[in-house]
Structure formats: structure tokens, C-alpha cells
């Protein structure tokens, strides 16, 4: 197994914080597209050339955010892009005849927006911030967004928000070492914290930076400043009638693989999850079929040393039949990788 570098993309003039593959691309002959965002206050749209297989920057979204753009997310239809910035706003971009226009700006957070995420149906957008709160916005006709609920429960900076891949259940992770699970119980607009995964539940002992779900949505992986990756599972992903909620529980902890902060983790549909860390390396983990009882259920598939010249901030697998891995780094570059067996 080898992680082969397909391309190294330059363009951003500051660290690249995050990227997001457009979910509506990569099949039916539609070239793969992703967006990346950076400390240079811009968002770049990259499109694959089908004949060369290489990516080129198709658009630069600038002069909207006045500070670092920390997070970007395509809506499930791939038509709308949301970007969250340290300028406390979230911008909504629409592709109008090849040009990206900022069609709406969501204001409400007191300070830096750290992450944005769409729910599976594209009707709700979640944002989180250093102001310790998580906001849920409803998408209304005419590019209008209205705040449905403000979730307060984290004691510190909220690093990431992530919707469950099929259910309207929201997950958030924070500098307070906790992962919180939020659901709309009963009455509409009544979002409550239904579970907190923290130290008492075998949780993380330092900042939780990222979360990702497996394809079926019954497992979740989290990564942390405590140098571990943890896998969580649930019996039933659906919200029970009557508001019952199947809790998540700790399945295993992967210790000893990382010696610096793990910033990013992402699970592929094929069951391989990748981690991006402060040691400039990318690691891939898979199911361990031969694991002992009570032993770790996952094993290291490979470690790509010096994947970047500096810290790896973000990793994400592409959609499409043959997933590629994209990574974003403090070195200002994005790399696209292919897993060759």
C-alpha cells in the first residue's frame, strides 16, 4: 500500500485551514471539484481536468471575508457553498453561471466562526464559534437563512460541528475536551444536548479537534490534542418515536500512533480513516479483523511521513468511485493523494 502524491496545489498565500469536496461531482462524467479556505482570507475553487486528471484553480472568492476563512462546506446538492470566518460571519455563495456570488451573510456569532456544516437534506446549516455557542440556521426560500436555535453547553471554544450523515442529529467538539450530541426533541426548534461524551465516558482529555462518521452512520471517529483517536458506536442511529435517543458509547482508543496534536480525521466510504497531524504526517487506519478481544479494533495501514512541509490541518476523501485524499497544510499548499495497493 502506498499513498501516492498526484498533485501539489499552490495558490493560497497563507496557511490552508480546510477544504471540502463538492459531493455532486466525481461521477457521471462530472469532474471532481473542491473548495479550500485559508488564512489569506480567500476561498479557492479547484476543478479537475478530465483529460489530464489534474486540478486547476477555477475561481478565487475574495473581498467578502475580512479575516481568515476557517471552514467551508458544500450543500448536499453541491450548488451552494458556506464559508465560516474569523470575521464572525458565515457567507453563502452560489454558482451563478460559473461565477461565485455571495448571496447571503449570516451574522450572529460574537467572534470567530470555526466550522460550518450542512445537514443531510440541506435544509439546516450549523455553525460554531469561539463564543462557545453553536447556531442552527434554517434555509428559507430566496437565500434567506434564519436562526432556529442557539445551543449553549460547551464551556470553551467550539472547534467543529458535524451533522450525522442520515439523521438530523448534530455533533460538536470543543476545547473543553467534550463531544456534545444535540437533537430536536419533540417540539420544533427545541434543540437540546442529549449526550456529552467526555472524560467520564472514556472520552478525550484535551481539545477535540474533529469528528467523522463511517458510511452507515453507526460509528464515529474523533481526534484530539491528547494524541489519541477514539472510535464511538451506537446501536441505532434513528431518532426513536417519542424522542428516545440511542446513546453513543466508546468502542476503542488508538494510542501510541501520534506524538503531536491530531487536527483532522476523515472516514472513507470504504472504511479507511485518515488522520492529519501536527507532525506533518498523514496516517491511514483500517478495521483490524484479527484484533484480540478488548484490543483495538483498528490498525495502522500506513503512515506518510513528511506529507507536507508543515502541520497538516485537514484531510478529506473525495466522492466518486475511486476516492482520492486531499490534504491542507500550514505550508500553504493542498495535496491530492491516491491510495495504491
Amino acid at each position, binding site marked *: 500500500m502506498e499513498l501516492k502524491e498526484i498533485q501539489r496545489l499552490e495558490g493560497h498565500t497563507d496557511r490552508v485551514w480546510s477544504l471540502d469536496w463538492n459531493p455532486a461531482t466525481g461521477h457521471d462524467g462530472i469532474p471532481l471539484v473542491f473548495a479550500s479556505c485559508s488564512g489569506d482570507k480567500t476561498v479557492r475553487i479547484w476543478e479537475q481536468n478530465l483529460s489530464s486528471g489534474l486540478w486547476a484553480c477555477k475561481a478565487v472568492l475574495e473581498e467578502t471575508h475580512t479575516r481568515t476563512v476557517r471552514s467551508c462546506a458544500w450543500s448536499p446538492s453541491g450548488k451552494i457553498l458556506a464559508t465560516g470566518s*474569523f470575521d464572525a460571519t458565515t457567507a453563502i455563495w452560489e454558482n451563478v453561471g460559473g461565477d461565485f456570488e455571495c448571496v447571503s451573510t*449570516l*451574522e*450572529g456569532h460574537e*467572534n470567530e466562526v470555526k466550522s460550518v456544516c450542512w445537514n443531510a437534506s440541506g435544509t439546516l446549516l450549523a455553525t460554531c464559534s469561539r463564543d462557545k455557542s453553536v447556531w442552527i440556521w434554517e434555509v428559507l426560500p430566496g437565500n434567506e437563512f*434564519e436562526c432556529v436555535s*442557539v445551543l449553549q453547553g460547551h464551556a470553551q471554544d467550539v472547534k467543529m460541528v458535524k451533522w450525522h450523515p442520515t439523521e438530523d442529529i448534530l455533533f460538536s467538539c470543543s476545547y473543553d475536551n467534550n463531544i456534545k450530541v444535540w437533537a430536536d426533541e419533540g417540539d420544533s426548534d427545541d434543540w437540546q444536548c442529549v449526550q456529552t461524551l467526555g472524560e467520564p465516558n472514556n472520552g478525550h482529555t484535551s481539545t477535540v479537534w474533529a469528528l467523522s462518521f463511517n458510511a452507515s452512520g453507526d460509528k464515529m471517529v474523533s481526534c484530539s490534542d491528547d494524541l489519541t483517536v477514539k472510535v464511538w458506536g451506537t446501536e441505532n442511529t434513528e431518532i426513536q418515536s417519542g424522542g428516545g435517543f440511542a446513546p453513543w458509547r466508546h468502542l476503542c482508543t488508538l494510542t501510541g500512533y501520534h506524538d503531536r496534536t491530531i487536527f483532522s480525521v476523515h472516514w472513507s466510504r470504504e472504511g479507511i480513516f485518515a488522520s492529519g497531524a501536527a507532525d506533518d504526517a498523514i496516517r491511514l487506519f483500517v478495521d483490524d479483523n484479527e484484533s484480540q478481544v478488548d484490543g483495538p479494533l483498528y490498525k495502522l495501514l500506513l503512515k506518510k511521513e513528511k506529507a507536507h512541509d508543515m502541520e497538516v490541518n485537514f484531510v478529506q476523501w473525495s466522492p466518486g468511485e475511486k476516492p482520492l485524499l486531499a490534504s491542507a497544510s500550514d505550508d500553504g499548499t493542498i495535496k491530492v493523494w491516491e491510495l495504491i495497493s
Partner: protein
Amino acid sequence: MDDLFDSSLNLEDTHYKEGYDEGHSDGLVAGKEEGRQVGLKVGFEIGEELGFYRGCVDIWNSALRLDPTCFSPRAKTIIGQMEELIEKYPLMDPENVQVQEIMDSLRLKFKMVCSSLHVKLEYSGYPKSSTEANDIQF
């Protein structure tokens, strides 16, 4: 029989008690005045903040009377909830445990209405969670 040196042996105790009594009565006066000043300041701030929200809610309600569709149903609901909270606030009972909870809820709902109405209103005395913390952000 009384010890000849009794009074001088108790000198320290006597002075200690005198000093304590003097300090206690002076402390009562100073403490009362200080408490008065703090109460005046905090009471003023809370009254000002509640008054600010009351003013906003009254204007929004006036606008809604002229045109019931001028704000979204969700914003209307929250404005109504703010009104209830303001009326419920135990102004004359500062030690009521609900005081902080009601104020936090009011601040949150105010932010939600402002966001929904696309207005940037800010109560100037509003305490920021952390002002000018560090410039380095991750």
C-alpha cells in the same frame, strides 16, 4: 485575692478587645456604604439593560401591530418570549436564583432577533464573553 499585676497582664487582651470593637463599628459603616455603592451600580446596570430590551421589544411590537407580517413567525415568537422574560424578571428580589438565568436567556433571544431582523443592535453595557483575548487563533 486579686493579683497585683492582673491589670498589666491583661493589658494586651484589653487593647485587643478595644481595637476589635472599634474596627467592627467602623467596618459596619464602611461596609454599608460600600454595599450601597455596589448595589447602586449593579442595580443601575441591570435596570438599564432591562430597559434597553423593553424599548426594543416595544418598538418591534408596534411594528408588528402595523404589519403583522413584517417579521418572520420565528422572530415574532422570540419577541413574545422576551416580553415574558422582562415581565418575569424579579426586579425587587435581587437574591432570587432565577435572576442570572433570565438575564442570560434575554441576551440570547435578543441576539437571535437581531440576527433574524438583520440588524446590528448592541446594548453598550453588554458584557462580552472575552474581549480582546488573544490574536492567535486556531
